[in-house]
């Protein structure tokens, strides 16, 4: 297990925090680590910052994320990794689509050529909007930006002008984005989230059609996903029971 000392903790909103810590490992955008909270749990988290000071952005869902979100300067963070295949970062124009904290792993891809589509349930869920020069914002309840889902925001954008589309968020949102862009722009990369236990391609809990999200992913190309009938459709629960997404 690796450890690092927390350098800084920044509160983004009621339940979302940025945690910064020193780590010299060379990590690619989209890769993740398994963060251990001794005595509680171990969860996958990706990076919203990839310099010498690494940055993770974490939303509180349960005990483990709560514990990590509340780490303070000087505390120790335990983790293993980095794991998974990173996004391929292109030189040209990029469209970054992130739902909620799904925008976090896309943050390292932001540059002058990036256009952001940020979605959330409410305005509270929208983070990192100030990092983008050009962006669209949508919320389910219309409390910030336009009312609607991420895919609705895409309808106002000319997708053909982008060299690569990047998307990260709940699988159901990714599926709707895929269904929409499939006929317009074939160049897209999606970062998937499925329940993870081992993180190293051995337990089968994160699998999708024979691929392990933890090792073959979490980033998959549009072409790969098109050949996965499970995508947006079914997955295995923590116990291994096939359930609808």
């Amino acid at each position, binding site marked *: *297990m690796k450890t690092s000392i927390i350098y800084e903790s920044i509160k983004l909103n009621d339940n979302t925090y940025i945690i910064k810590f020193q780590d010299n490992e060379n990590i690619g955008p989209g890769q993740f680590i*398994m963060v251990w909270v001794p005595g509680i749990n171990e969860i996958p988290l990706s990076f919203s910052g990839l310099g010498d000071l690494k940055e993770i952005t974490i939303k509180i869902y349960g005990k483990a994320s709560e514990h990590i979100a509340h780490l303070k300067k000087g505390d120790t963070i335990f983790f293993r990794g980095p794991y998974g295949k990173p996004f391929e970062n292109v030189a040209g124009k990029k469209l970054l689509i992130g739902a909620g904290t799904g925008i976090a792993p896309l943050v390292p891809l932001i540059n002058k050529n990036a256009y952001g589509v940020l979605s959330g349930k409410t305005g509270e869920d929208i983070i990192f909007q100030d990092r983008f020069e050009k962006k669209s914002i949508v919320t389910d309840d219309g409390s910030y930006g336009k009312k609607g889902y991420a895919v609705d925001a895409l309808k106002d954008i000319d997708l053909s002008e982008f060299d690569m589309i990047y998307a990260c968020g709940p699988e159901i949102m990714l599926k709707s984005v895929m269904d929409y862009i499939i006929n317009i722009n074939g160049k897209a990369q999606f970062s998937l989230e499925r329940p993870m236990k081992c993180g190293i391609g*051995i337990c089968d809990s994160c*699998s999708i059609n024979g691929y*392990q999200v933890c090792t073959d992913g979490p980033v998959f190309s549009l072409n790969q996903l098109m050949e996965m009938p499970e995508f947006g459709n079914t997955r295995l*629960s923590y116990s*291994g029971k096939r359930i609808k997404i």
Partner: protein
Amino acid sequence: MNIEVDIGIKISNPFMLASGILDENGYTIKKILESGAGAAVTKSIGMEERRGYEPPVIYENDPVFINAIGLSNPGIENFFEEIKIALMGKKPVIGSIFGKDAEEFSYIARKMEQYGASAVELNLSCPHVNGYGMEVGSDPNLVNEIVNEVKSKINIPVYSKLSPNTSDIIEEAKAAEKSDALVLINTIKAMAIDIKAKKPVLSNIYGGMSGKAIKPVGIRYVYEIKKEMNKKIIGVGGIENINDAIEYIMAGASAVQIGTAIYKYGKNIFNKLNNDLISYMTANHIDNINELTGVALK
């Protein structure tokens, strides 16, 4: 050149996927079979859905690998679809099962047969409900009862997978004599402490050690039991390459299973093992892989 082996069923090569590794989702099993495995054993399935333990469920620090998945499984009634998907891989799928008594084992075994499994593997190394720290497999009478009961209820081969956490595995093996093959070995109980956290790493504290570190224990059990009784044996524990597999075969195994090595070498390890087996046999003028089974005993 013949690399087909007979373990009650014929499998096209001696390399099988071990239970519990990449074999919960039918699509993954299918992919493993397409990657060259001769057969695949499913995750151990019980009567009821079981969540298993919370992460961390693995500790990895090569050569040490410890897991405590905790027999998470969807329950036999929910496993039909996965087998159905796995069978699209067009090679034998073997259902691994666990239960608390002969009745449970035979119920699940019958289901596996109905689902289309080519054989069942009895996981006799799981925790016993009626006794702290005990395992089904360390009670020879119970093993005997389970094996006989399952054998009498199904028409596909029955394999017994034994635990190395015992003082007398020969007694256990004899209790399982009616099985069509013995599968040796399951993981060795072990644990790791993170000295910075000052805490055990696994949420369950204890887990099972597998991989490279346990190969000499697996070889010993295969050899020891092959010497004692003339039973088909499937060797498992720490196989990472063709030399490891040949060592198990020379010790007495007719086929071998691969688990932990997959995290190091990926699913393609099965294709590689097949190619390396052909090269090995060519270089050593061996026509039939079955000739090698147990040669170290002679």
